[in-house]
């Protein structure tokens, strides 16, 4: 795997060069946290796509389709359609009324200290779930690829962690954005080539490809079974399957619009119109990528076979194994290096959104009542926070090791975002009556209910069958208390209800009086943060 290492080293070298270029250009908080708000529409579209198409997409979703056919494809559909919510409801008001974080929008007309404190907590929770997802993906990759070269899982995780800390600590948002743009280009190119290879395998006869996908053969409980991967029902079965599916849809449609690392990207552009255009760019990229994941996933099922996947690195490695089968070791090396780049870029995006929220929402606005003790304090605190976030995520990732599907892990962070962040963000922008009590109860109830239900659900609780290779291990050996693996169907309405009830039980004339200001600013951009000069 020396080629994989060489390609990976080339990517690291070029991204480090970008980081030092960015570090020389970055002066002041707006440059560090928001890339000076000078990113263009297509650049931000690529960066959003690069931020969003994580290990959960390239490794996780392809793997889900490779093992469970159509039901796995629903993760891809959900990931794409979520951007309609962002486009229609969130991106432009967010850009016009905030500065660096989701907390800015909430604090605009609510009492800033409590809402910022809670926004920082739920931001950090979401980011931690995502971080675990990426690290599990990285670990699985290393297990497959670099074992021969003597690099261990722990060393790889530490390496990924240190690199992303360098990007974030030195380069800030500008370096992170460019790392994401390059990674989005590489990943899209890889997906296109791999898709063409799959179709070429069937001499570009699409119907033959789908015919093969309709009868995939594999071992189940010691017997050979043949399953139609184009039919629903391989993952989500009665009695709870239908509810789980609707729940998954809710998590995607509302959760993506509450993901802190996606929301911060809309502060890096000069105005709301650019934010809007960048969402459309992201939709073109993410949509075409996810359509291709279905070809890759089904291709892996047909050409590689679920049995081989399960015994050679597990579900997350489906796309990588497909690349090896179709393109040999050279292509395997390229695809793995791109997968690594993907993880690196996403982890950098997560780290900067977490450290921004900590420095800007919590440190400056909660602890120091909105004033920097000395100039440059916010950026300094963010750099320290990035260091801490990096160290903590390295420790968690080493503690966990590669266990479950990255696509599923990713939905946990999204469930928290859908239940705790999205309801209060939406109500704060569109409901005049909304107030601080509503924001506090909405965020706390949404966050707690999502967390409790996830831990009480079948992904954390379950009794492992003895000696089944490739099976997921459960952290709690007991029957699950909550039957659904996707908690959104309960936690999202709970988050909304708590926000509405909390609001109705209290009055806050100041918050209502400031709604006109927020509405004018959100809709015509009067007084919105401007792009900075050189």
């Amino acid at each position, binding site marked *: 795997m020396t080629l994989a290492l060489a390609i990976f080293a080339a990517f690291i070298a070029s991204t480090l060069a970008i980081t030092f270029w960015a570090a020389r250009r970055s002066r002041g908080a707006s440059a560090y946290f928001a890339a000076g708000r000078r990113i263009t529409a297509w650049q931000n579209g690529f960066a959003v796509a690069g931020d969003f198409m994580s290990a959960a997409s390239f490794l996780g979703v392809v793997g889900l389709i490779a093992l469970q056919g159509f039901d796995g494809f629903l993760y891809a559909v959900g990931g794409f359609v979520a951007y309609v919510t962002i486009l*229609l409801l969130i991106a432009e008001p967010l850009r016009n009324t905030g500065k660096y974080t989701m907390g800015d929008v909430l604090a605009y007309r609510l009492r800033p200290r409590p809402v910022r404190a809670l926004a920082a907590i739920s931001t950090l929770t979401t980011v931690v779930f995502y971080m675990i997802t990426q690290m599990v993906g990285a670990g699985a990759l290393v297990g497959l690829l670099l074992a021969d070269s003597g690099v261990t899982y722990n060393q790889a995780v530490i390496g990924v962690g240190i690199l992303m800390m360098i990007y974030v600590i030195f380069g800030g948002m500008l370096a992170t954005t460019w790392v994401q743009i390059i990674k989005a280009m590489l990943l899209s190119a890889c997906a296109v080539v791999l898709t063409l290879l799959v179709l070429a395998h069937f001499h570009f006869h699409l119907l033959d490809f789908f015919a093969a996908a309709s009868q995939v053969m594999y071992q189940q409980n010691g017997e050979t079974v043949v399953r139609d991967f*184009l039919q629903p029902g391989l993952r989500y079965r009665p009695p709870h399957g239908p509810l789980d*599916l609707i729940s998954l849809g809710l998590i995607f449609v509302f959760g993506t619009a509450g993901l802190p690392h996606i929301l911060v990207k809309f502060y890096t552009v000069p105005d709301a119109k650019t934010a809007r255009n960048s969402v459309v760019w992201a939709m073109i990229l993410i*949509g075409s990528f996810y359509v291709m994941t279905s070809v890759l996933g089904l291709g892996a099922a047909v050409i590689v076979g679920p049995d081989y996947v399960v015994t050679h690195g597990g579900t997350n490695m489906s796309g990588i194994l497909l690349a090896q089968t179709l393109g040999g070791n050279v292509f395997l090396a390229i695809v793995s290096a791109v997968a690594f780049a993907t993880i690196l870029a996403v982890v950098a995006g997560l780290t900067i959104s977490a450290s921004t929220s900590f420095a800007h929402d919590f440190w400056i606005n909660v602890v120091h009542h909105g004033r920097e003790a000395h100039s440059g304090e916010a950026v300094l605190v963010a750099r320290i926070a990035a260091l801490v976030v990096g160290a903590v995520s390295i420790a968690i990732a080493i503690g966990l090791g590669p266990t479950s599907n990255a696509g599923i892990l990713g939905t946990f962070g999204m469930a928290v975002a859908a239940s705790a962040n999205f309801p209060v963000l939406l109500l704060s922008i569109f409901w005049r009556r909304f107030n601080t009590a509503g924001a506090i109860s909405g965020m706390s109830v949404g966050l707690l209910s999502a967390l409790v239900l996830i831990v009480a659900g079948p992904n954390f609780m379950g009794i492992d069958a003895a000696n089944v290779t490739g099976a997921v291990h459960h952290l709690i050996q007991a029957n699950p208390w909550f039957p659904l693996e996707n908690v959104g169907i309960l936690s999202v309405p709970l988050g909304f209800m708590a926000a509405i009830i909390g609001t109705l039980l209290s009055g806050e004339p100041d918050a209502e009086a400031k709604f*006109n200001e927020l509405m004018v600013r959100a*809709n015509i951009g009067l007084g919105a943060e401007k792009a900075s000069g050189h």
Partner: protein
Amino acid sequence: MPSDSDSHNEWDRVASSAQFRDLMAIKKVFIVPAFLFFLLYYFLLPVLVGYAPKLMSTRVIGTMTLAYVFALSQFVVGWLIAWLYLKAAARFDSLAEDILEDLNRQEPPA
């Protein structure tokens, strides 16, 4: 931008102006139905897949199932909504610019 002292009155005045209310009404006419249609069309997929798996397993083209074709159509519909929104938003932008221009004329920036 209105200054801090008389800011509330100024924002309220813009918010209650006929121009701004027109803009909000025009936005609502597009965004509310578009978002509701999107929710309906998208959630039809998990609902049908979950509760009518037989219907969704119907072969449409070759071995392609209705479920698969419906799932792919979500991408087309998403892109279509985005395209329509871009067209509608060009109108929102010009109305917003008119409001901003009027404000600048009444109260030249210091």
